[in-house]
């Protein structure tokens, strides 16, 4: 029985070249990376196909009914973005809030904080 080869395509965003990188995966392991012009592209593609990470930005409610813009203090796994959004939809914050203040901890079990991206008196 031969292991199935999966082909993934990643657009590199490390520099303006925007290389289209092809990644071949066999049995969960990367066996070939092509289309990149430099090592940074290969590293980027590796992260993208194994554990892509993103900073999530969204809003939570303030007690006064207005919206408070927030972000995760670090990137979280891309696969957990929707779980994080869902969890944050129930969060209500009491003003005053300072920019950078933690308004929610361990979002979607990632251990990452969610912080306010503006102050509110």
């Amino acid at each position, binding site marked *: 029985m031969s292991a199935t080869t999966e082909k993934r395509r990643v657009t590199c*965003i490390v520099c303006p070249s*925007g290389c289209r990188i092809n990644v071949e995966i066999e049995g969960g392991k990367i066996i070939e990376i092509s289309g990149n*012009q430099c090592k940074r592209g290969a590293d980027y593609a590796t992260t993208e196909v194994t554990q892509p990470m993103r900073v999530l*930005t*969204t809003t939570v409610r303030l007690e006064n009914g*207005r919206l408070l813009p927030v*972000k995760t203090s670090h990137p979280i796994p891309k696969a957990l973005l929707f779980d994080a*959004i869902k969890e944050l939809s129930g969060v209500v914050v009491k003003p005053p809030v300072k*920019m950078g203040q933690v308004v929610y901890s361990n979002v979607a079990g990632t251990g990452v904080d969610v912080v306010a991206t503006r102050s509110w008196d």
Partner: protein
Amino acid sequence: MQNRELVIIGGGPAGLSAAVEARRLGIEDVLVIDRESEPGGILKQCIHTGFGLHIFKEELTGPEYAERFIRKAEALGVEIMLDTMVIELTSDRRIVAVNGREGLVEIQAKAIILAMGCRERTRGAIKIPGFRPAGIFTAGTAQRFVNIEGYMPGCEIVILGSGDIGLIMARRLTLEGAKVRCVVEIMPYSNGLTRNIVQCLEDYSIPLLLKHTVVNIHGKKRVEGVTIAEVDDEMKPIMETAQFIPCDTLLLSVGLIPENELSRMAGIEIDDVTGGPVVNQRLETSVPGIFACGNVLHVHDLVDFVTQEAMEAARGVASYLADGGKKYDHIPVTAGEGLRYVLPQRINVEAMTGEKQNFFMRCARPMARARLYVESERGVIESRLLSHVKPSEMISIKLGRDELKGVKMLKFILQEEGDKIECND
């Protein structure tokens, strides 16, 4: 009538950056007028990251970028007049503004910086046929609804135009539970940053249909769908390719227009290509003592460049206040082949505010590798190799006073080079 030293119209990133720099340069009396109840301009609703990579060397959200400048402005004693709309501007630098506290306010300024920003092109500007139901928004209006007011504009969405705001909204609406059917772009290339194509569309498997446009809008009360079609090389729809896409919302991300009603009122010369004022080396318009920076001057893709330009306008004001509005002759700066425009449109080398002059330009089409030539009446005085130029990404270059000394004209030309591509940083 109030007498003020420097009045800045608009409290967005351009106005705030100019105000901060003006105070740093020792201009005592700096007043910023803004029509909204909070300063920060459009950054307030741009809750995504990607701001500040050049200025702060870190990736900030829009509100964070704005708050840093608001704090600096406050710490430096900049006065910000909010909820105030400037309704009149004259060529002798008189301003009439109106607000609910004082009624009409008349101000005589020694110098003025225009920082009114831009607004979005609407359906009328691109003449889409069809009914006129509810559910058609510009992307920025939808962004305000979602991020500031807390309303969803719809559930099933088609986005026309691949400008950055449209791409950002495709992701934002998807995260908030809407289904974005596709992004339709009439050009053969996207008008957004590559980073946004990847992180806003590819991340969520949202199709980007290049060389396509919306040819009909359906629905009487509410949008029920749109017909899209491929376009030919003359951008004419190929009706055989038309297909119906059901949706309840159409977002338009089809370009921005510098907001120059006040500039025109003051008789300021406007450039047909940029849609903003014609300016000189210190970003002074054709009316002495009135300067311009940011999106009112020309539409930017990065806020960091807006800040840099606004700081240049503040230096311009400082030099104007110092030389008492002395008259200078200018040499013309023009855009040749391969470029849409170059700013500033005219310069006086002797009166440059620094040792180097910044030139901002936009290319006419994407090129993998191109050479930028700077020509004077004596021939080519400078050339630079550029890689991956795109109309959506502004080109900025600096030329030194020595290179420019004695020249009678400047012309910038961008020529595509062979297909050998180097990897750059």
